[in-house]
């Protein structure tokens, strides 16, 4: 599952293999930082109860790329979705939420946030439902039918922009290699506990 990528030790100006933090290398340090982002993301779910979390690691490429997370929901439950983008430091990404996967031509965009880089944001399933209703309202559906709209799954798409590749010399082989520039965005979902009382 996924491409195995060996971390280039440096991402920005710091060209040293070891960071100053307890001798951890860049990859270890990044993982440690992302673990902290996950905690922040989970804490932001309050007052909803934790359901699931998903960290998406990505590497910037010289072309646009996309990663998708399919989120299954329990019908008629209220959810809160939180994101932490502190691990997005190279170039901002775009976060879009649809009712269908990317393979569908006619899917409905129900949330979008452009230029996501650092910080956090959140929204609820009610907001997504409202956007779904608005979509169908414009198509002329009655209020009766609009109330029946279900959201059993949503698809979170991360669009990662292209960057200019940078190269460095491999100290072991002397060959030129691409400097891997990576990022991570953390997602967590929580459900309204009172809905189960």
């Amino acid at each position, binding site marked *: *599952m*996924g*491409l*195995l*990528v*060996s*971390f280039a030790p440096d991402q920005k100006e710091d060209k040293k293999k070891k960071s100053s*933090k*307890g*001798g*951890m*290398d860049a*990859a*270890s340090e990044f*993982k*440690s930082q992302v*673990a*902290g982002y*996950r*905690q922040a993301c989970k*804490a932001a779910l*309050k007052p909803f109860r*934790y*359901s*699931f*979390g*998903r*960290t*998406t*690691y990505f590497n910037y490429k010289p072309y646009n*790329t*996309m*990663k*998708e*997370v*399919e*989120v*299954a*929901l*329990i*019908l*008629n*439950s209220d959810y809160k979705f939180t994101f932490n983008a502190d691990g997005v430091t190279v170039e901002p990404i775009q976060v879009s939420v649809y*009712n*269908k*996967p990317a393979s*569908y031509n006619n899917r409905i965009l129900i949330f979008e946030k452009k230029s996501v880089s650092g910080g956090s944001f959140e929204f609820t399933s009610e907001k997504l439902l409202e956007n*779904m209703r608005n979509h*169908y309202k414009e198509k002329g*559906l009655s209020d009766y*039918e609009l109330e*029946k*709209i*279900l959201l*059993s*799954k949503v698809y979170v798409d991360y669009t990662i922009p292209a960057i200019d590749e940078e190269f460095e010399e491999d100290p072991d082989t002397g060959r030129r290699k691409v400097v891997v520039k*990576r990022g991570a965005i953390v997602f967590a*979902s929580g*459900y309204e506990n009172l809905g*189960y009382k």
Partner: protein
Amino acid sequence: MDGVAIKMNTMKNINVLLLGVVIFFFACGKDEASQHQDETPVVDEQITENVIIEESSDFAFAPPSPLEIAAFFKQAGLVYDQTILNPVSNKDLYQTKLKKSLNFGVYAADLATCVVNDQISDAKGYLEATEYLANEIGMSNIFEETAMTKFKENISNTDSIIMILTEIQMNTIEYIELNGKDDLEVVYFAGAWIEGMYLGSLTIMEQDSGNVVQQLASQIEFGNRIATGLEVIEDQDPEIIYIRNGILEIVNAYQNCESIKNLTDEDVDLGRLQMTKAELKEISELIVALRNDMIE
């Protein structure tokens, strides 16, 4: 396969010290809410070399927690019956890591079912079985040493028990994410998914609930993701292939139902999905058969 730890060869460069990063949430003397806020990851700071981080796959999934699924089926009318769950004593039957991982997921679903139905006495056995299998597959860190003690102390407080299960769920996901255990994750979810579908099938048999059909349909489609995840596991043990084929058989049977084939996207969005009793029976039988094979 004695190896859900597939890709271990590729992941072995990850320093095992990272395994120690799992976070414990059951610290004594703290209230539950503040525990969430205060926790910070504890990272072993020994030097690591050649750390590899796997880029996430282009398509990933985020299933509902076993607690949510169990609560949904309870609300939908599933009557608690311990005899429909995977007996705790079966835990000793599972010899391979695959079987242990699958049934770790099954027991997680059963444990949640006990708890949401206030069957805490039964839940204790399932917690022990879950912990036993977690230890067997190298995930002992998701249970704090005092988890069982806390469970016993809160035996009359279902909400606190749910909090303990939620913490275990969080720790499980954290463990998987920290250690890149994608293969373990998909097998665990496969087990929980099949058990959840099984309980949903029984609910449909007992209750003619349209809402359950909608939920079950949504969950069935999720099977495609799990099947894809099982397919990319490196060590294609015959048992993995069997489980994957069983899941695909369920998904295909669902997609080939006349009631489903004629649905438009709008029909699905507007909750117009309906299935005949014969269709539900056919799919339910496939689910029950696969589930019963899995727990043997």
